[in-house]
């Protein structure tokens, strides 16, 4: 593995983890798509600041872009408060406008800028190692690693320090306000971090894929745990692993690193959605089948109990009769009878079913429950 490859992987992990942390709170606040809005509108901040300072690597660009992100959140909220449009429509109005202005400005006045459409939308992680951070002639590694590392550190510090407050303000903002915990202030602090993270990640993964890195690991983690602290750890782990797998997939396919990272995040979510222990799709299907079988066994027991020692018993307790009377398919009826036999709820004697003690107990228990 070359030095450059290693550096790219370090940056990829830093970006992914830095995005995943605030992403958890965005998803919990049901404001996932604000990440989309912010990651687009920051372009306007970058462009305007560039016109002011004429230097693409100036930290002023980062500040201006972050401010634009926060402005976007404020504009969306202000527009929502007018009650003339709903929140989702307000989001859809604000950020494309800001983004479009930025696109026009780039096309009209900044053709020489390295900001072309591809790099805006997708970024390019592979170029990151070319841009070095040098102090007094000493090479300290790629600039992106330092920028993303600092942003990650800020995120960790903020969430670490204000974990309790963020938890309260995202769960119950009104109670937080009644307690004097300024949930609005926390919200904007969080949005500032989201904006700053999006700005930092912008160079590496572009404006579209920032969204994937913020939302997918958080959504995955939320399927796996019901404890916020565990959710945060899982989101970070998913993001870091996706970044590494994504890098090597891109390497193997000679494709976009950011694209592979995001796809891997999505694949993680899909796998979790399908196979998660309790909430996963397969677990749900299995549970439903099990419930259906349990209910069928109860129904069989009740049916046999009802007709026990009655004249019609000779007809009613034949397995083939079940298809007709309880409207099961022949196949399902056979499975239920087989299961009932193996569970020792019934015995089969000369083609007729008889309840065992256990079966009788189940029948009377089911009837009492139903009453």
């Amino acid at each position: 593995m070359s030095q450059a490859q290693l550096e790219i992987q370090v940056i990829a992990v830093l970006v992914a983890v830095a995005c995943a942390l605030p992403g958890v709170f965005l998803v919990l606040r049901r404001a996932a798509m604000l990440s989309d809005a912010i990651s687009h509108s920051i372009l306007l901040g970058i462009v305007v600041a560039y016109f002011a300072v004429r230097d693409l690597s100036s930290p002023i660009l980062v500040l201006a872009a972050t401010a634009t992100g926060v402005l976007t959140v404020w504009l969306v909220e202000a527009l929502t408060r007018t009650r003339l449009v709903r929140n989702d429509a307000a989001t859809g109005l604000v950020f494309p406008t800001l983004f479009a202005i930025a696109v026009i400005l780039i096309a009209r006045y900044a053709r020489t800028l390295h900001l072309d459409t591809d790099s805006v939308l997708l970024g390019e992680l592979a170029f990151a190692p070319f841009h070095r951070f040098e102090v007094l002639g000493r090479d300290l590694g790629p600039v992106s690693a330092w920028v993303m590392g600092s942003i990650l550190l800020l995120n960790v510090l903020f969430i670490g320090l204000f974990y309790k407050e963020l938890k309260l303000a995202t769960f119950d903002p009104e109670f937080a306000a009644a307690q004097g915990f300024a949930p609005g202030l926390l919200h904007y602090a969080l949005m500032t971090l989201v904006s700053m993270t999006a700005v930092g990640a912008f160079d590496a993964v572009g404006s579209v894929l920032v969204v994937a890195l913020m939302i997918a690991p958080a959504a995955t983690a939320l399927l796996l745990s019901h404890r916020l602290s565990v959710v945060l750890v899982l989101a970070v782990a998913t993001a870091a692993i996706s970044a590494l797998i994504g890098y090597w997939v891109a390497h193997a396919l000679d494709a976009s690193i950011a694209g592979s990272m995001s796809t891997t995040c999505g694949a993680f979510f899909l796998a979790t959605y399908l196979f998660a222990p309790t909430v996963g799709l397969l677990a749900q299907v299995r549970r439903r089948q099990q419930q259906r079988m349990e209910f069928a066994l109860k129904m069989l027991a009740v049916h046999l109990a009802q007709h026990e020692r009655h004249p019609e018993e000779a007809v009613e307790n034949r397995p083939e009769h079940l298809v007709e009377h309880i409207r099961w398919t022949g196949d399902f009826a056979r499975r239920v009878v087989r299961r009932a036999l193996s569970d020792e709820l019934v015995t089969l004697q000369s083609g007729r079913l008889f309840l065992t003690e256990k079966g009788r107990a189940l029948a009377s228990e089911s009837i009492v429950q139903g009453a």
Partner: protein
Amino acid sequence: MRHDRAGDSPLAEDVLAVEVSDLTVAYHTKPVLWDVDVTVPQGVLMAIVGPNGAGKTTLLKAILGLVPIAAGQVLIFGRPLPEMRHLVSYVPQRGSVDWDYPTTVLDVVLMGLYRRVGWIRRPGHAEREKAMEALHLVGMADFAKRQISQLSGGQQQRVFLARALVQDAKLFFMDEPFQGVDATTERAIIQILQRLRSEKKTVVVVHHDLQTVPEYFDWVTLINVRRIACGPVREVFTEQNLRAAYGGRMAFFIEQREEGC
């Protein structure tokens, strides 16, 4: 966190728990509350009743500083709310939060102590003990480690109540605590309200079951955008005031009351 300790000096017994004067709240130009005066003496259980859209919840939120007010003044134990926040507890409507949030019952109750713990610091062993006590009071101690998404509506309400109780407040605001809860929970809540009254605490409840007002409460405020009446239940919970608050919709209830008497 600011800790104004104005309320640490013993409260004068005759100071009103809540004094709302000339309160007006409007969304744009549409008034939700018009020039409302409400006074709540200490140690009463007060119901706020009125038809849908009368501004009951808004009144509660305006008192708690959660919605901007257009005019008027709110005093809590004779002082502005920010100085008295540590004496005030709030139980929001159960439906106002996301019960799928990844947290446990005990954690939710602990939230009631966040203010006392202060910014940045984390609740510790002593706080957990206190939260467990509150869960015992509402009969939810066995559920402490449970995921909040696994609770029934009544259990959710009791958890919210425990979160308010843990604060050691002197004044409680509850928004529709009986809304959609089972009979066990309703009894548990009533017992707790009575216990609070016996401890000389003041409780203000947004309520909408008129039938139970005389049984559960000793003080009542009737509103319908304007304040209709405010005072002891046996003095102001009259047919005339109910008609004024509810208009024609009251006929059914009044007939029932007369039959019952």
